[in-house]
């Protein structure tokens, strides 16, 4: 079981999109953690975990996401999850994990959110 991570940074809006593909388990979690820590360390306003292609997640993966969520919150930034598959959703559900983590059901919702963010920045 493999995990492929792609990072896409939008400097202008300070948004980082981390796309996961495959399985996030104890074997693949360590590398993913390094990657995610890197991105979070850059201090973007919003870091989005795009789970469209994520087929599997276990407690090891959740741990990594938890940690990242804590860090972004401490830094006053946000971490969000998008496009979760149903059984991934179920896992988050069961653990009632991260109630204050933003969740976007699909790309449309994410885009709308980004638009509002941008307009807020423009008007500020």
């Amino acid at each position, binding site marked *: *079981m493999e995990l492929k991570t792609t990072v896409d940074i939008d400097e202008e809006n300070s948004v980082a999109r981390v796309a996961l593909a495959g399985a996030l388990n*104890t*074997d693949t979690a360590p590398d993913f953690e390094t990657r995610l820590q890197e991105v979070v360390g850059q201090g973007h306003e919003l870091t989005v975990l795009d789970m469209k292609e994520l087929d599997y997640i276990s*407690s090891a993966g959740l*741990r990594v996401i*938890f940690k990242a969520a804590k860090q972004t*919150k401490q830094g006053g930034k946000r971490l969000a999850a998008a496009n979760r598959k149903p059984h991934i959703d179920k896992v988050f559900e*069961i*653990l009632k994990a991260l109630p*204050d983590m933003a969740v976007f059901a699909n790309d449309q919702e994410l885009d709308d959110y980004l638009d509002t963010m941008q307009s807020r920045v423009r008007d500020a």
Partner: protein
Amino acid sequence: MATSITSRLIGLLTLVSALIIGVSMLIDYRLSRDEILERLRIQSQDTIQAAIIDMESWLGSVEGSTRFLARILEQRQYSRSGLEQMLKDIVANSEDIFGAAIALNPEQVDSPLGFAPYYFRKDGILNYADLAGESHNYQQQAWYLDALRASKPVWVEPYFDRGGGEVLMTTFAVPVYRSASEGRRELYAVVTADVALADLQAYLQRLHLGDSGFGILLSREGIILSSPDSDNLMRHYSELESNALDIATWREMFRSVLAGREVSRQLQCPQLPGECAIRLGTLQSTGWPVGVIYSESEILAPLREFQIKTVVVGLTTLLLMALAVFLVTSRITRPLSSLALASDKIARGVMDVPLPSARGNDEVARLVRSFHAMNKDLKTYIAELEAATASRSRLEGELAAARQIQMSLLPGSGEASDEAQDYSLWATVRPAKSVGGDLYSYHRSGDTLYLAVGDVSDKGVPAALFMARASGLLQQLMIVEADPASAMQKLNDALEAGNENCMFLTLFFGVIDMRSGLLRFASAGHNAPALLRGGTASRLQQSDGPALGLAAGLQFPSNQVQLVEGDRIAIYTDGIDEAFDAQARMFGDDRLLDCLAQTGALAVAVAGPEILQAVERHAGEQQQSDDITLMLLQLTPRESATQTAQTVTRENFTLGESLVTRAQEWLEQTLHRLRVTPDLQLELSLVTEEILTNIEKYSGLPSGAQVSLSLVSTADALALETRDKGIAFNPLTDSHRSPLGADIESAEIGGLGVHLITQFTDQQTYRRFEGSNILRVTKVLHSDQA
């Protein structure tokens, strides 16, 4: 150091002795001080007294001589030369007198100047002076006038005798009266004797106390007759330049003294810094105030010396004592400190420490000797213990290996699970010790199914060896012998041979014709199996023979029973019904029948463990007393054959890299074969990962250790069982759970796995058995899932 016996002893002893010595020295000092003070007082008193007495006697003799002369003149008449001669004699013979004069009343003499011869001693030579000269005539002199005025003997105030002795002097003048005609008393002459102040000074010098103390002598009018400072002579005390005492005090003292009292005062020392004292009294004879001024500190010098000596002696004593205490105490307690140090080292595991030598027979020596002995014994015990432990672990290792070998003698390596179209079977052996004497066997050949369950007498290694022999023979027989009774016979003969230890085996041997369902069986002293039919469990009837291996050439009765589809039989050894609890109550056949009935709906591979768990629960804390064997056989109804598929698939994995991935791959394949839905596959995959992660984290097993995964699939459930030989750890209760739904701040990173396990499965059981953690999670299947 502050807490060592030595320093405590020294400290306490020194303190106590310091106290005792201090108090006794203080008392001694006090008493001695009083004595010394008293002595000093007496001493000074004596000194003063002696000087005064001398002075008194001297002045007294002066007075006496003068009075005597006066008396003579009173009575006798002398001529002028006669008077002169008498005077000369007196002065010559009297060392005490400086000079003497006889001054006649000028009326007695026809010369207006009068007649007054005066003899005095100067430089040892007798001199003559005529006081009736023109200048300094005696009739104007104070001594003459004072005597006249006083009309009685009187000491005259000191003066400088000009025209006479030419020295400072004081005079004792005695007027002489004769009775004249008509009974009148008329003055005849004044007789005098002089005392030079210089001579007085000599006497006074003996009146000193201390190095700077000195005496003073004053006239009745307050003129200083004698003082160490010659400038002060002849001056009135009010003219004293020193500011030692003010005039008022002097006057007051003077008055008191003249009144006859002794006075003493403190004053500033005239010549030295510091406090002085003055003591004034009067000379009895002359009435002159005489006194002594002395420095108290000088006088008390001996006392101070004494004080210092006392302190020095005290301190030295104390120091010496502390030293002595220190030396003695250290010597005595040194062995103790060495012992304490040595025992510290021994406690840490350093066995070869040098111990102090024991001298004498006191408690410390006895302690040291005991310590020596204990140390030696300890070393011996530890060596023996290490040897014993080493040999025990060797043995344990061998036993563990033996167990594996023994288990591998049995089908399924100790836990067999088999399913076919027409039956499902499950069997297991649980030895009481590392190795045991129970066995089971089964073999399918065409339409015939052979079953056997046996129990060797006793348990442990001997039973295991016999069991191995019996098991081998049995498996051979199963292949060739179709008739249970004759198989039993052959087996008995084979086992009897070479059985010197008289071990025996109880055995159940059954043969089922799968087409007809007829079960033929023979029993050699073995408890009859139980049959569950239509929800009711009961024991089968059997006629059995004796146990195998004891006597050759025995016959065994044959039994048979007709089985139908759906029947479930349980063949077991007495380890089950004879499992005792803490109150020595057996599990019993009836309870077994109950369990059998209750688990009837479950697949044999699930029911079996359930029944054994019930036995375990009954036994509770009690150790397993006998080997336990259970075999469940179910004749499956032909129609539902395709539906009921009970499989147990097992695989071993080594801990280490990508364990989860490997395990999940295996699981995927197995589940796929079992036609399990992808969703369920994912869930079970996740559960497997969480279980394995827990094992990796908490078992304490090294990389490379084995973990076994079994998947038991039945019509209505999927069970996943993991076994590991790590430290006792029940993930269901022992792992750290973090609160669900907590916000990011309080979410503990970790402890989520167990939630996932419990949420994605319906049933979870854990047991610890013979050094293994066994976790079994079951997911009940709904009709759409498999």
